[in-house]
């Protein structure tokens, strides 16, 4: 007999459970996208793809490993990375939902405003580009997305102590990068 589904795993099959999850997090996901891309159509695609990935991955969430938002941002990072890897390939036709097709002109205006509002985060994100991947990933989630060290560690599937070590190294590396002298890094919460 199949195990009864509990918690987030239900959102894969239960539209009502999914709607609850979606309404809790859709703004956070669109802001996540707006901190990384400067085009409303791409932001819409990323948002749609993150939630599609959430549906596929819901069974992997373990509350003991971190908060919902940390898990969600971990997925969002993977989606964005995959999006960029396949940017040159003609795969749009194979997607289940193409976010940009759901936009009307009001939505575009609203997303543009959101993208403008997140410009500081986007500058920080861009400034991290040349850092080693492990360090950059921790910094990105803390400085750009405002996660705690523990949440960033959960999002990346690493131990909090590892995240703290990377953050410590990053402070040294970034001493001369003015754009990254943010309170979020200086006073990163555990």
């Amino acid at each position: 007999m199949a195990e009864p589904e509990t918690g987030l795993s239900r959102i894969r099959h239960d539209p009502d459970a999914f709607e609850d999850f979606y309404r809790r997090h859709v703004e956070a996901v669109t802001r996540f996208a707006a901190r990384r891309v400067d085009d409303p159509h791409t932001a819409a695609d990323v948002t749609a793809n993150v939630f599609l990935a959430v549906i596929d991955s819901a069974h992997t969430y373990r509350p003991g490993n971190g908060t919902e938002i940390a898990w969600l941002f971990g997925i969002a990072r993977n989606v964005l990375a995959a999006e960029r890897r396949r940017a040159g390939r003609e795969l749009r036709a194979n997607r289940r939902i193409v976010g940009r097709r759901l936009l009307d002109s009001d939505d575009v205006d609203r997303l543009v405003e959101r993208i403008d509002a997140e410009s500081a985060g986007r500058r920080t994100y861009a400034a991290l580009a040349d850092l080693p991947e492990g360090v950059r990933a921790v910094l990105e989630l803390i400085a750009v997305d405002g996660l705690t060290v523990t949440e960033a560690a959960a999002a990346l599937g690493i131990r909090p102590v590892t995240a703290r070590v990377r953050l410590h190294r990053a402070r040294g590396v970034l001493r001369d990068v003015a754009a990254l002298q943010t309170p979020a890094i200086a006073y990163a919460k555990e």
Partner: protein
Amino acid sequence: MQTFEDRLLAELKHVVAANRSATEPRRRARRWTGPRLALAAGAIAAAVGTAVAVPALTEHEQAQANTVERIPDGSIMVRLVEFTHPELVEQKLRAFGVPAKVDFLRFGTQCKGREYDSDFWMSEHPDDGVFGGDPGSDPHADSDMRNAAGARIHPDKLKPGEMVVLDVWFENTKDSSSASVVSPMVKKIGTVPPCVRVPGGPRSGPDGVGG
């Protein structure tokens, strides 16, 4: 007034609802036993995510078993129950005016340069309507193909020079063969090179169901 977020939610809820539907035939497949296998012989295996077992056939029977036929709406239905002679399926499709490349693949392998995309059948407009149901039907599941290993092809949607590519993953057991994943694609320009098998693609689940 509806916003992007509202419209996206509605689309995503369709996906979730389709997931729920898709799990139901999967459970039925697990329960099939000897007498039911015979009933399955003429049935269609699953397009996405469901395995249908068919009795083992002689080589001659296998070569004859796959069917390609035109159905009343003008589309071409490919039904696959054996997985040894892809070239015969290609020939039959060509007879209907559909240039095609068909490959039968073991789970855990895929053709280099033709990476598997599990999202295909969930697309709203997969390859401009070449595959799947008619426009206006449920965009998330073609009811005729939900329980079929094969594909429905609308040849009138193929543009000059385009070619249908069907990658089909199958599994043989002692008493039966089953296919559970078909990945249809349209090659836009030129021919499709022979399949160079590399690791990847879908894997067979514990119940023989690919995914």
